[in-house]
């Protein structure tokens, strides 16, 4: 009975089927961005909301006031500039470290026996399911001056004075690699596992040494996995807040943290919006690369 009812509108319902999720994403994803851009041109004020409106109509005159002060300030301020550089640099180093640890892991998981693979991948994914906050917290106990790592190294006699890791950039690197490693391994594994091993066989038959075969066959074939994994780590790492806040020092400059402080501590919403716009601008190219890659993956499945 019900299907009869539906059948009347379904054939013309294609638009509805596409339109509903489209509208949802538009309202809650794209529209908010446009608002951020708008508010970055307004001014902080006391009251609710804590920013001035951009437009007003007074005596039949419509005025649009764009305050570019925040952008000017941001471009001229050394600390902001240093924050951008350091965010990109920290995200980049974390990405490279993830790749250095993640690639060999993904490689050996992909070459493990078929029955072991699923279990090994599940073990990579398992930490991702447990709380991210807890996993970052776990490192505090390890990295502190009297933490497990220093206790262990001093017991071994490698060092006499504890290493300062907690509340430094090193702590942030370790926390980032730990948190984002699964994101690196997943796409790498996906590419390495479907690789045709006969290609390697052919390379060996033609006399290639293992290392050469790896560089000339395996590595190029996993290129897309490397790009995808790196983007999955790099983009969110640039705007990371929790890790630098918990493991980094007060001198660990990261843009996500600066934005958070502007917003919650200084209550300067327009400035926070400006910093956000700058962050989006910074991530535009990597984001476009990611979109391109995702589209390609979808084509491949077809």
């Amino acid at each position, binding site marked *: 009975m019900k299907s009869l009812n*539906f*059948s009347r509108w379904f054939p013309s319902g*294609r638009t509805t*089927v*596409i339109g*509903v*999720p489209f509208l*949802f*994403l*538009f*309202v*809650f*994803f794209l*529209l*908010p961005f446009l608002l*951020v851009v708008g*508010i970055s041109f307004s001014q902080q004020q006391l009251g609710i909301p804590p920013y001035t409106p951009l437009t007003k109509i007074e005596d039949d005159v419509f005025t649009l006031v764009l305050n570019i002060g925040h952008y000017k300030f941001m471009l001229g301020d050394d600390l902001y500039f240093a924050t951008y550089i350091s965010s990109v640099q920290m995200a980049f180093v974390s990405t490279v470290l993830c790749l250095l*640890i*993640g690639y060999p*892991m993904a490689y*050996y*998981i992909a*070459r493990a026996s078929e029955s072991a693979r*699923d279990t*090994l991948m*599940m073990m990579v994914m398992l*930490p991702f*399911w*447990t*709380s*991210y*906050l*807890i*996993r970052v*917290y*776990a490192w*505090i*106990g*390890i990295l502190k001056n*009297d933490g*497990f790592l220093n206790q262990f190294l001093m017991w071994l006699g490698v060092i006499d004075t504890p290493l300062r890791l907690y509340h430094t950039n090193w702590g942030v690197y370790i926390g980032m690699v730990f948190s984002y*490693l699964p994101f690196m391994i997943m796409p790498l594994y996906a590419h390495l596992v479907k690789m045709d*091993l006969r290609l390697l066989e052919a390379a*060996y038959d033609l006399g290639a040494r293992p290392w050469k075969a790896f560089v000339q066959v395996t590595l190029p074939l996993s290129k897309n996995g490397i790009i995808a994994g790196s983007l*999955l780590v790099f983009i*969110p790492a640039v*705007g990371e807040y*929790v890790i630098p806040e918990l493991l980094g020092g007060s001198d660990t400059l990261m843009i*996500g943290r600066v934005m958070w402080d502007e*917003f*919650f501590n200084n209550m300067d*919403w327009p400035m926070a*919006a400006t910093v*956000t716009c700058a962050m*989006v601008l910074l*991530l535009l190219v990597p984001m476009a690369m990611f*979109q391109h890659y*995702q589209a390609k993956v*979808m084509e491949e*499945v077809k």
Partner: protein
Amino acid sequence: MSTMKPSKPLSIAVLGFGYSFLYLPIILLVIYSFNESKLVTVWSGFSTKWYGALLEDDELITSALLSVKIALMTATASVVIGTWAGFVMARLNRFRLFPLFAGMINAPLVIPEVIQGISLLLLFVAMEQTLGWPEGRGVFTIWIGHVMLCVSYVAIIVQSRVRELNRSLEEAAMDLGARPLKVFFVITLPLISQALVSGWLLSFTLSLDDLVLTAFLSGPGSTTLPMVIFSRVRLGLNPEMNALATLFIIIVSVGVVAGNLYMRSVQRKRDREMQLAFNQA
């Protein structure tokens, strides 16, 4: 052929190092949750007193209940919208604005959460000003925010599952006169039910764990568990948090492992049945 095999010792060394890196912090956290001393990293004897302390911590319990409630709401809504969007991605991807649609699905996977947090907040503030709704921030705004966080994951999981579906079953139903909507609910949906379950579970854990978006979107009286945890661990180690983390880790691990085993067995059973059905045909 023997040269083909990757070297065993190297493989064990790499994986051993990698997995200890991933698991050692968690194992230490669990062990030291049973430490009697308030100094978390100095062992002074076995005790479960921090677990007892958890039970008497009203702030923690209230926020945990709220987090579970929001996670249930989020997971359910995300699966509905995410499945819808994922299906569009897989089957109805020939419209002009499709690149924009795909972009809006993919971007939240990587975009830093602080960006999404502030933009959604500004949206809700603007809405309150112009429409008078939603009044203030609270469970509702957090809910929407979390759904935005999870929808993409569900959509991606669902779309890849829909793409690998064997279409013959749907076509058969179509030939027998079923309308598209009926085919979707009676044939397609059961076939992708596994993807829905993983999407639901993933959304549930993502929501339960989210701090950054929640901080932007919560109001007075809507403090979630991660917010409480964060405000405490920000000041350093806290033995009670170790106990809480241990409980969390145990529940999630058991859930994920059991879910994984269950889904593998279901998958095998379904593959067998499909095989039989096709063989008979």
